[in-house]
């Protein structure tokens, strides 16, 4: 197992700014979503990605639309990092007809196959096999597409983790398994639910590389993901990356998260990836504070416009309940 330190990576200023922009867009989307939820504009369950932005963005910066990702119940960040339309997402979360899934899916099922985003997932561990499948398509078609499977620390105990990584390893599938270890599965701590200190340790059980990365650092994520993605595209098989990260809010909206101490939350907030990465950008002269503020303001404008459009959009017609169960005929 390799513990990836933050490495100097050759990235253009443009790429770095693009990464920051994506990260801030996720953050602004999530904090706005939180308010919209509190205002009763978003029905159902909502799990916020705020705090984990460096993971999705560090990884997805490597990807094209022809690459695939599978996601989780905490999927907004993955969607945005993969380029899913913000307005379509906002409308989807609100249950409107203009939603990216026509209001059928909601927060836990946002998807955009065209963009290579194979869906948030309401089933913990549900994405592992799907990711193998997308990677199998690439292998059979002989393309160099790669698939990223995002999953939580809690999911790392599910049977599908084991079965899928073994399958990917023996078939040398072009897939990268990215564990977002935020220390908790709902109210249950990682220390309690998992029998090893690092999920990455488990890679040895499949004969594949296991890598631990600082999930609050987008550059460390970028470089670890880069290695793994290159390996996958080369046909050398999967890698297991464990990103040590943190969710800034509760498990879902409504969870007071009293199982975490204020000190623990504070310690992580001090390492907020937007603050540290922002400082890196200003410190290296790639951006000014004003540039960063401008990006945040633009993100806010985008997200506000998305939610405003969602609020103005029509509800689906009840008759649409029966649509899209099958390709060839309608449910009844």
């Amino acid at each position: 197992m390799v513990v990836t330190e933050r490495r100097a990576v050759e990235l253009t200023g443009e790429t770095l700014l693009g990464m920051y922009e994506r990260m801030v867009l996720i953050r602004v989307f999530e904090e706005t979503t939180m308010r919209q939820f509190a205002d009763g504009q978003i029905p159902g369950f909502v799990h916020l990605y705020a705090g984990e932005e460096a993971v999705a963005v560090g990884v997805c910066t490597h990807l094209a639309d022809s690459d695939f990702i599978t996601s989780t119940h905490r999927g907004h960040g993955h969607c945005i990092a993969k380029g899913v339309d913000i307005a379509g997402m906002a409308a989807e979360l609100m249950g409107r007809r203009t939603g990216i899934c026509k209001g059928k899916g909601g927060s836990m099922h946002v998807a955009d196959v065209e963009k290579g985003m194979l869906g948030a997932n309401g089933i913990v561990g549900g994405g592992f096999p799907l990711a193998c499948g997308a990677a199998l398509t690439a292998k059979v078609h002989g393309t160099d597409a790669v698939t990223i499977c995002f999953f939580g620390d809690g999911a790392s105990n599910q049977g599908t983790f084991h079965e899928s990584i073994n399958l990917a390893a023996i078939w040398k599938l072009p897939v990268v398994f990215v564990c977002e270890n935020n220390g908790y599965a709902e109210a249950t701590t990682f220390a309690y639910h998992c029998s090893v200190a690092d999920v990455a340790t488990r890679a040895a059980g499949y004969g594949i590389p296991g890598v631990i990365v600082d999930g609050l650092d987008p550059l460390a994520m970028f470089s670890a993901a880069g290695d793994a993605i290159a390996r996958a595209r080369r046909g050398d098989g999967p890698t297991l990356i464990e990103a040590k990260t943190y969710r800034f809010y509760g498990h879902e909206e409504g969870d007071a998260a009293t199982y975490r101490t204020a000190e623990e939350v504070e310690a992580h907030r001090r390492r907020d990836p937007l603050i540290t990465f922002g400082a890196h950008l200003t410190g290296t002269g790639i951006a000014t504070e004003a540039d960063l503020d401008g990006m945040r303001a633009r993100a806010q404008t985008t997200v506000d416009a998305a939610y405003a459009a969602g609020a103005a959009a029509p509800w689906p017609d009840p008759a649409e309940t029966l649509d899209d169960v099958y390709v060839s005929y309608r449910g009844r």
Partner: protein
Amino acid sequence: MATVATRTLTYAEAVNEAIRISMRQDPNVILLGEDIAGGADVDHLVDDEAWGGALGVTKGLVQEFGRGRVLDTPITESAFIGAAVGAAATGLRPIAELMFVDFFGVCMDQIFDQGAKLRYMFGGKARCPLVIRTTIGAGLNAAAHHSGCHYSVFTHMPGIKCVAPSTPADAKGLLLAAIRDDDLVLFFEHKLLYGLSGEVPEGDESIPLGTADVKRVGNDVTIVAISRMVHQALEAAEQLAAEGIEAEVVDPRSLSPLDSDSILASVAKTHRLVIVDEDNPLCSVAHTIAAIVADEGFDSLDAPIRCVTAPHTPVPFSPPLEQAYIPSPEQIAAAVRAIL
């Protein structure tokens, strides 16, 4: 019948009370599930902060019975539900929680191939006194992975008993019976009923599995309704009563074994049957009830049997779609009018 003191409890409180009573009586009763205690190894949690299950139904039990009997599990339904089966076969009486019934696909083998069949395969030389509590039902905009009913799948399976209470009193009485039962019982709690209040008997008053309950007496039509649909049916019955139509509402309460005698008796009186089921229609409990009556109650019938069910679709997220998905009192009343 001796009078039993009652007080008002919610459906969730009634479930909690049944578990508490059973755990006090029998040290073999243990509880396991994800966050069933909540925050398993978190020391700073003050008592009522522990989750007590994702929906708070088991709150307070870990404080009374300790972490040795109220066990938080990793997110590994096959392992912990299968462990509950193994524990049941070797002397415990576990109560396992499957957080949402929609997750059954990740652990079904342990339920139906192991738990349900073990006694039969072993020639009657084993028991599986296990209760699996799970939540069902649409109405929280929880979308396609958190809103189904699917008790039909379990009702189909030999070796499993299925219970789906509609009131706080039934929830308590049936759960007491289920925990005491020597077979594998799936106990379906409707998420939208948790907040419902009702009179609940004090103490250890169980209700036998396999007994239906007539929730409203009437002569013109029988409405058999399951779980939350009992309340939709009762509302429909009120609408119909205003039109002079008196519906009898029968709540089977347990789906397997099913008290078909009570249903047939009601149809013998009313000659008409509407069945209301929030589950998808094909291979549903609704269709099974219809089939039983179309056979054994055929001569009583004066009209076609109508089923009012969810459509043959997953549960949609958007509120207007989800409302269209759930059988409504209006649909039920219309189905009744159509066969009168």
